[in-house]
């Protein structure tokens, strides 16, 4: 088992590495992590400290990305904003993945009425325009980054659930699972030892794409004025406040937009790369 695992891992990793776009995406993702964590060491400014007399300065050697309308350093805010935007992405997707995996496992493994009940619920949730649901709830609750992560998570688990369920169904009747059942393994053990590891790949792909989606959703919410509450910097709300200055303080608008674009694209390429790597059917060189 273990030897097979490590062999697989090697193959997957090799395939991923050979995909130049995926690799580039992965490097951006990593670099971003490092930059956002090291933010306090990279920039001498505080993300929320104002300077009413130095507002809307264009980019210079002192302020790489200029200053915003209350004199905060945009580069600093974007570094700290990366922390927030990534946090939103990861926590939201974490919630979605957890719920989706549990629902999918239960549904697929136990089947029967429980399965149909859960799957009907998934169908219903799929009917709602997700962004409408998010809007309705977020706008009615008091603004908080935790609610935003929670709501994005709660409205994004259905895909994972279907995915995991399908995976479980295909594995459930395989020989080694049947064998495990025959020798008296408990349900829990079968699920965690034999079924779950097989579902990890597709879920990972889904989660990577989900993070990208959550970052975008947060920026849309911020654009509508109900995203991460200020003064906390997130790429979304830096961008949203920058739109008023599009014409002459372009640095407030351009940089956060580009940052979102590049980051989301990178996550997507990574997700796509992982998919190709674990599913040899569609991969590049076999």
């Amino acid at each position, binding site marked *: 088992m273990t030897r097979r695992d490590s062999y697989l891992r090697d193959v997957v990793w090799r395939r991923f590495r050979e995909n130049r776009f995926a690799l580039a995406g992965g490097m951006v993702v990593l670099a971003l992590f490092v930059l956002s964590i090291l933010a306090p060491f990279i920039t001498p400014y505080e993300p929320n400290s104002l300077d009413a007399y130095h507002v809307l300065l264009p980019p210079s050697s002192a302020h790489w990305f200029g200053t915003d309308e209350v004199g905060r350093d945009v580069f600093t805010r974007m570094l700290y904003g990366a922390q927030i935007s990534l946090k939103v992405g990861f926590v939201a997707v974490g919630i979605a993945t957890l719920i989706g995996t549990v629902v999918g496992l239960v549904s697929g493994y136990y089947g029967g009425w429980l399965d149909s009940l859960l799957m009907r619920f998934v169908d219903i949730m799929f*009917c709602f*325009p997700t962004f409408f649901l998010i809007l309705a709830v977020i706008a009615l*609750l*008091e603004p908080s980054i935790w609610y935003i992560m929670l709501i994005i998570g709660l409205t994004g688990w259905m895909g994972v659930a279907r995915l995991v369920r399908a995976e479980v169904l295909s594995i459930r009747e395989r020989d080694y699972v049947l064998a495990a059942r025959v020798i008296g393994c408990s349900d829990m053990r079968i699920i965690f030892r034999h079924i779950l590891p097989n579902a990890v790949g597709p879920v990972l792909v889904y989660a990577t794409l989900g993070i*990208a989606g959550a970052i975008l959703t947060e920026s849309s919410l911020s654009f*509508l004025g109900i995203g991460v509450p200020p003064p906390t910097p997130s790429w979304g709300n830096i*961008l949203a406040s920058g739109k008023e200055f599009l*014409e002459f303080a372009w640095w407030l608008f351009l940089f956060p*937009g580009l940052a979102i674009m590049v980051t989301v694209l990178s996550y*997507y390429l990574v997700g796509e790369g992982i998919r190709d790597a674990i599913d040899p059917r569609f991969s590049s060189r076999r």
Partner: protein
Amino acid sequence: MLYYLAKRLLLMIPLLVGITVITFTVIHLAPGEPVEMQVAMNPKVSAEARERLRKFYELDKPLHVQYAKWVSRLVRLDFGRSFAPDGRPVITKIRERLPVTISLNLIVLILEFALAIPIGIMAATHRDGPLDRWTTVFVFLGFATPLFWLSLILMYLFGVKLDWLPISGLHSLGYEAHGFWWRVGDMAKHLVIPLGVATFGSLAGLSRYMRTGMIEVLGQDYIMTARAKGLPERVVIYRHALRNALLPAITILGLSIPALIGGSVIFESIFAIPGMGKLFMDGVMARDYPLVMGVLVIGAVLTLLGNLLADLAYAIADPRIRHGRERAL
């Protein structure tokens, strides 16, 4: 076929009930009340006046009573009256806005199919080549760009700087005075940026799906056979492979409806397009419960119908399902 249709329709009933329950729950989770919005802005309002407003809107009744009343009216297609000061029926407000959102989304869907399918095929046939790679990046870029950001940049570029296109809205002022074709042209000019951006943003899903489907089909035995027969590559791809790869794409159509409707909030806000997304946003901000619930339900039902249509189309197109069901009958 009839049996299949009947079964699908029956299956919709529990879904409809579920939709109403979720809608109602979501809206009533929130603290605060619509009355607050109306009254809060005005200091000259007494506590007594608030109670009066509460009664007027029946917010003093228990939740399950409110739900029962709401659903029983829904069945008769009565969505209640908006909490907004004009107090108009919700259904009227939605009817005003729905056509715009639906027709714009239909155009986007058509454009999306028209572009994404060739892109997908191209990517599949040039698999792993530069064309494949770069179209991949291109469609993902569409997905990855914050569309409101792109929209505002294009708006500034083409509307203010170059002055080629109008900025927002659906028509120019005084368009009524012109002939039909002038009005069509005018509207088209207004819609170039919003529709273009929306389409750009929606390409990724379908084109990737197409690519995968195409690759899979191209690996099938009958394609090998076709090639072996010496059929030209074009015929193999467009006559044999495409037909089969297209089938699953139909289901994507149904699935993409909720995303399109959801995305309309942003577009309609930026471009001042009077559609359902903007209506919903306004309703949410003003805590117009009946309106928000009405739009949520209608949005969900539209999706349900879209899925049904997609499935029916699939059933009609795929002989296996069509015949299978008929035999079962």
